């Protein structure tokens, strides 16, 4: 393995130099590399996590894996019961929830309920009829209860109200908002010119507007209030046990849904182009910020290696003087750079997977439209490690090349 000899000598020289270098200089360089690595992974991961967090929320707590809505031009999914039979026949079906929507006026106030604490006020909003048991299995709606309790089968006259409709939770919003409503208060909902009183059983708070700005009531109550038939639903969300088969199940359902003039979409499709564009935008933004971070790190490493090489110019000259080829000397500096990049990346990986990822899983950043998690993939991390290595090779090679190409005796004599 004669061709390996220059690398072996380069490695030997690099190892000895690192070993004898000032401990704190080594610590500083490794710290810079670790921060650079985290900058590369963290910023892009956080930006990507913002979108994927919102996307995940939408899937987990609204659309399910597949969502069925009326086809364009239709108001409802017609023949819901028959469609549900088809859905129930899917072997991988985990849960489903049928939703009914209706615009309504929601009123709160002392004049008609003799509740002195309640100010007379009303808003226009959307009421949603659901089977609370099925909805919870499909979207874990109960998770968003911030006051009161989730509604059970036996509390039919109760509703859940989104905090986005309540002044106490959304103090910044003026206008179409209810004031003074608490759990246990009575509210009046008027839909299809039919008024009915309900008790606020619980308050929901979520970053999903489909939860936060709506009032949820039991399907039977909804039908009684609106006079709508069970057959005319607005949405059916379903989850499946095998996420790999979502597309196959969707295609299968698509054919069946043709009969009902309904639109079948996967969770991704239902989120539309906006989410995709947002994701791409944030990915580009992450890449740009990462590239700036990488440039700064490369320049830093370049400067560190360059200063190291300049301060060792005499010794580089001596090595050349005793017959060591320039290539071997350059190898030794590249190995030093790689060492710092390797240890820096390793420290970064340890920090990332042992502390940062678990921390942000447990404590997502509270952004207005989603919970920001750290979206890091193995492929993404490997790509960034590779980028860091390549730039560190350049940062080691260029300065050492500049010194090595100098006249040997000038280097030795410091001329």
């Amino acid at each position, binding site marked *: 393995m004669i061709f390996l000899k220059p690398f072996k000598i380069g490695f030997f020289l690099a190892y*000895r130099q690192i070993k004898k270098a000032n401990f704190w200089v080594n610590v500083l360089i490794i710290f810079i590399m670790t921060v650079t690595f985290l900058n590369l992974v963290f910023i892009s991961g956080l930006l990507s996590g913002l979108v994927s967090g919102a996307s995940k929320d939408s899937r987990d707590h609204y659309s399910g894996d597949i969502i069925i809505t009326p086809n364009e031009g239709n108001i409802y999914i017609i023949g819901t019961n028959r469609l549900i039979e088809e859905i129930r026949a899917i072997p991988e079906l985990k849960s489903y929830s049928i939703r009914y929507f209706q615009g309504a006026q929601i009123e709160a106030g002392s004049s008609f309920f003799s509740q002195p604490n309640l100010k007379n006020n009303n808003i226009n909003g959307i009421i949603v009829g659901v089977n609370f048991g099925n909805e919870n299995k499909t979207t874990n709606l109960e998770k968003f209860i911030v006051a009161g309790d989730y509604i059970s089968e036996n509390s039919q006259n109760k509703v859940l109200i989104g905090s986005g409709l309540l002044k106490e939770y959304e103090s910044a919003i003026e206008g179409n908002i209810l004031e003074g409503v608490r759990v246990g208060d009575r509210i009046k909902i008027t839909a299809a010119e039919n008024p009915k009183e309900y008790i606020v059983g619980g308050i929901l708070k979520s970053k999903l507007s489909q939860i936060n700005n709506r009032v949820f009531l039991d399907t039977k109550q909804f039908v009684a209030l609106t006079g709508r038939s069970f057959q005319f639903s607005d949405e059916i969300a379903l989850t499946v046990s095998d996420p790999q088969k979502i597309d196959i199940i969707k295609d299968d359902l698509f054919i069946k849904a043709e009969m009902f003039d309904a639109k079948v979409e996967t969770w991704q499709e239902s989120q539309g182009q906006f989410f995709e564009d947002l994701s791409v935008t944030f990915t580009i933004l992450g890449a740009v910020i990462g590239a700036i971070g990488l440039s700064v790190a490369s320049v830093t490493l370049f400067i560190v290696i360059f200063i190291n090489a300049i301060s060792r110019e005499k010794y580089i000259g*001596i090595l050349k003087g005793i017959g060591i080829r320039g290539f071997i000397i350059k190898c030794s500096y590249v190995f030093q750079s790689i060492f710092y990049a390797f240890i820096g990346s390793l420290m970064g990986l340890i920090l990332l997977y042992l502390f940062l990822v678990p921390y942000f899983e447990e404590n997502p950043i509270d952004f207005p439209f989603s919970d920001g998690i750290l979206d890091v993939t193995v492929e993404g991390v490997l790509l960034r490690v590779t980028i860091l290595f390549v730039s560190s090779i350049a940062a080691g090679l260029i300065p050492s090349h500049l010194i090595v190409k100098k006249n040997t005796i000038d280097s030795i004599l410091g001329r």
Partner: protein
Amino acid sequence: MKNKKTIIIAKNIVKTYFSGSVETKVLRGIDLEIEEGSFVSITGRSGSGKSTLLYILSLLDRPTSGEVFFESCDTKKFSETMNSFCRLKHFGFVFQDYALLPELTALENTMVPLMASEDDWTKIEEVAKKMLFQVGLEEKLKNYPSQLSGGEKQRVAIARAISNNPRILFADEPTANLDSKRADEIMSYIYDLHKKGLTIVLVTHEEKYLKKADRIIELIDGAIKN
């Protein structure tokens, strides 16, 4: 008398340094031949160009004009890699300030040229130790240069210079930084090497060391006297 082979020929060597518009001619047409096994001393006042001549003969530097032939090969045509190869395999160099690598021990300093020249690394350490034993440093193998005295450092430099069994040993005032006892010690190692047949080219001020040379070249203002 047996004819000795000439291994280095210098023809009309001129070396000029430029500093802006100022031109300083350090060597002015040096012609010189060095025979194998000879002991050549180069002397002269400070600034006479003796070190510059040594650097050019040992391929550490290139002349502004003129030719240096090594084994009849015109070194002007040598690439930097070829120059390195010559310095590694055929030349040993002892610098005035020892020129040891501070992060390497005495043994490792001696091993570096061997690592570059030998394909079989199993015997490198053994050879390097042998070289250091020759200069009496068997107790200091693991010492770093900062843990050695001036004389010991220069002995390591000699061990390193001869580790590849060179054809010529160039020494640039190797005793300049040493007291007279250590200087004599170092010179005795160099005389021993010459006795064993090694060609020596020595730059020195010291009259007493000139006496043992086969040939003394005195430089005055960049030219050979006489």
